[in-house]
C-alpha cells in the first residue's frame, strides 16, 4: 500500500490533484497502513505470548509437585483449562472483534486442554500412548477454531492430526496405517471453506492452504496406500495444483499451486526410477478400503477439476495437471500388461518422456510469462532428470562433465535472457 502514498506525491507534483486532496489521501492511506501493520504485529505477539505461556505451564507441570498431595494436585490440574476457558469467554463477550484476542485465546485454550489432561495423567500415573493422548486432545480442540474464529488453533490442529497419524501408523497392526486421519481432516475442512469465503486472498487463508496441503500429504503417506501410492499421490498433487489455479487464479504462487507443482515435479522424476515401481504381483486383498477410496478418488477428482479448468479457460500449466492421467495410465499398464523387466522399462521410459515434457513445458511457460520461479522450476526438473539418469546408467566422466556444463549454460542463459527482456519491457 506504500506505493499509493508515493504515487500521491507524483500526482500532486504533476497537478493532477490539488495539494489539499493530496494531503487528505496521504493521511487516509497512512493511517490505514499503520493499522494494518500494528494489527499484524499485535496478533503475532499475542499468539507468541499465548504459546510461550502455554509451553511454560506445561514445563512447570512437568516439575511434578509431589509434596502438594493428591487432592490439591487434582484440583490444580483443572486450573489451566479453567483459566483458558475464562479467557475465551471474556474474549467472546468483550473483544470478539479483535483478531489478536481471538487467536491468543484460541492458542491458550489448545494448550489448556493439553495441560489439564497431562496433569491428571501425571497425578494418577496413567501411562498412555502418545497417539491416544493426541486423539483425545484433537477431538477436544476441534471446536476452538470455529467458536473463536481463530486460524492459529486450526493450524495447530492440522499439524496435530498429521502427527497423530504418524504416531498411530503401525505397519505391524493390520497394515492399514491411520485412515482415521481423513475423519479428523473432515472436521476442519468446513473451517477452511469459511476462511476462503471470508477472505480468499488474505494471508491467513494462505497460511491455512499451506499447512492444509502439507498436512494432507503426510496424512496420505500415513494411510498406507501400499502400491496404490502412485495414483494416490499423483492425484493429490493434481488436485492441489488445480484447486490453486481455480480458486486462487490471481495468485501465481498460491501455496496449493506451488505445493502441487513441486509435488508433480518431484514425483515425475522419482517415477523414472525402475525400483520405485511395485515389485512382483500386487496382493489386492492386503490393501484396505480407505486406500482404494483415496487412490481412485484423488485422481478422479483431479481429472474432474482439469475438465472444469479447461471449460472455465483459466490459466494453468497443462503439463502439471496431466500428471494424474499419465500416472493412472502407466500404473494401469504396468499392472495389467507385460511381465518382469520389459514392462518396467516401458513405464520408466514413459515417465522419462513425461518428466522431460513437464520440464520443458514449465520452463517455456516461465519464459512466456516472465516468471523466474516457474522457469527455474522447469529447469530444475530437467537437471534432476539428467542427474537421475546418471545415477541409473554408466556414463563416462567426460560425458557427465559436458552434460553438466551444458545444463549450467542453459540455466544461466535462460535467466539472463529473461532478465534482459524484462528490463527492456520495463524501459
Amino acid at each position, binding site marked *: 500500500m506504500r506505493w499509493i502514498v508515493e504515487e500521491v506525491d507524483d500526482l500532486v507534483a504533476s497537478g493532477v490533484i490539488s495539494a489539499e486532496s493530496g494531503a487528505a489521501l496521504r493521511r487516509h492511506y497512512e493511517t490505514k497502513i499503520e493499522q494494518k501493520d500494528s494489527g499484524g504485529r499485535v496478533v503475532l505477539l499475542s499468539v507468541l505470548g499465548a504459546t510461550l505461556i502455554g509451553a511454560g505451564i*506445561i514445563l512447570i*507441570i*512437568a*516439575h*511434578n*509437585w*509431589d*509434596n502438594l498431595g493428591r487432592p490439591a494436585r*487434582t484440583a490444580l*490440574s*483443572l486450573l489451566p*483449562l*479453567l483459566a483458558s*476457558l475464562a479467557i*475465551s*469467554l471474556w474474549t*467472546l*463477550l468483550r473483544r*470478539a472483534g479483535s483478531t489478536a484476542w481471538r487467536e491468543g485465546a484460541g492458542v491458550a*485454550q489448545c494448550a*489448556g*486442554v*493439553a495441560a*489439564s*489432561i*497431562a*496433569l*491428571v*495423567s*501425571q*497425578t*494418577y*500415573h*496413567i*501411562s*498412555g*500412548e502418545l497417539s491416544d*493422548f493426541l486423539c*483425545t486432545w484433537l477431538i*477436544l480442540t476441534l*471446536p*476452538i477454531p470455529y*467458536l*473463536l474464529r481463530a486460524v492459529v488453533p486450526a493450524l495447530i490442529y492440522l499439524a496435530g492430526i498429521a502427527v497423530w497419524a504418524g504416531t498411530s501408523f*503401525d505397519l*505391524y*497392526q*493390520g497394515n492399514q496405517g491411520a485412515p482415521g486421519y481423513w475423519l479428523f481432516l473432515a472436521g476442519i475442512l468446513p473451517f477452511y471453506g469459511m476462511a476462503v469465503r471470508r477472505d480468499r486472498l488474505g494471508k491467513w487463508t494462505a497460511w491455512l492452504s499451506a499447512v492444509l496441503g502439507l498436512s494432507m500429504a503426510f496424512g496420505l503417506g500415513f494411510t498406507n496406500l501400499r502400491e496404490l501410492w502412485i495414483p494416490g499421490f499423483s492425484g493429490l498433487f493434481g488436485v492441489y495444483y488445480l484447486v490453486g489455479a481455480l480458486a486462487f487464479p490471481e495468485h501465481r504462487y498460491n501455496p496449493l499451486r506451488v505445493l502441487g507443482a513441486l509435488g508433480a515435479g518431484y514425483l515425475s522424476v522419482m517415477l523414472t526410477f525402475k525400483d520405485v515401481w511395485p515389485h512382483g504381483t500386487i496382493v489386492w486383498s492386503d490393501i484396505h478400503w480407505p486406500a482404494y477410496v483415496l487412490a481412485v478418488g484423488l485422481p478422479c477428482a483431479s481429472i474432474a477439476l482439469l475438465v472444469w479448468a479447461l471449460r472455465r479457460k483459466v490459466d494453468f500449466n497443462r503439463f502439471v495437471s496431466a500428471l494424474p492421467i499419465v500416472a493412472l495410465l502407466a500404473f494401469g499398464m504396468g499392472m495389467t500388461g507385460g511381465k518382469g523387466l520389459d514392462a518396467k522399462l516401458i513405464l520408466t521410459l514413459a515417465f522419462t518422456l513425461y518428466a522431460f515434457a513437464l520440464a520443458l513445458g514449465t520452463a517455456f511457460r516461465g519464459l512466456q510469462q516472465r516468471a523466474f520461479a516457474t522457469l527455474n522450476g522447469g529447469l530444475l526438473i530437467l537437471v534432476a532428470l539428467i542427474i537421475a539418469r546418471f545415477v541409473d546408467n554408466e556414463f563416462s566422466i567426460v560425458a557427465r562433465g559436458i552434460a553438466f556444463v551444458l545444463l549450467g549454460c542453459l540455466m544461466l542463459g535462460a535467466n539472463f535472457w529473461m532478465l534482459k527482456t524484462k528490463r527492456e519491457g520495463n524501459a
Partner: protein
Amino acid sequence: MNIRLTLLILVGLVQLAVPGWMIFEQEQTLRLGTEYKFQTEPVDPYDLFRGRYVALRFKAADVDYKGSDLLNVSKVYVVIRNNADGFAEVERISSKPVSGDNVFLAINRSGWRSKTLCLEFPFDSYYMEETQAPQAEQAYRDANRRDSKQQTWAVVRLRNGKAALADLFIDGQPIRDYLRDHPHPKK
C-alpha cells in the same frame, strides 16, 4: 453471538469432563479396587508433557505362550491372581472382554513368532518430582539388581477392568519414605 457463547460454554464443559472423568475413574479404582502387588524388574525416561518418571518393568508382563492367535491382537485382557508369595501373576489372557476386579487391558507388543507374549501394562510409569525421579530410578535399579536381596513391587488397584497405580515399594517401604531414609545421589 449468544449461540457462539453457549456453544463455547458447552465445549468447555466437555473439555473439562474429559480430565474430570479421568480423575473420577482413577479415584474410584483407587478407593474401591482390589489391591495387587506386582513384582518389578530392572530397566532416565522423560516424558515431554508429564515430566520425569520411573519406568517400571514387571515380572508378570512376559508370559509363556504357545498358541498363535493372540500374537496379532494389539490389546488383550489380562486376568490376574495372587501366587503363594502374595504377588500378582497372570492367570490367563484373553482377546475378548472379561469382567471382574482382577482384570485389566494391556498392550500386546509381541513379535511375529515369539514364544512369549510381551505385554505393556497400563501402569508402567511412576511419575515423580523432577529432582526425585532420577534418585528413585537409581534406587529402583539398585534394588532390582540380580544380586540384590531387596524386593520391589508396585501396588496396583483393579476394578471393573480399570487399573490405578497406587504406590511403588522398595524393600517394604513406599519409595518416598525409602528415599528419605536412604538418599540416592544419581551416579
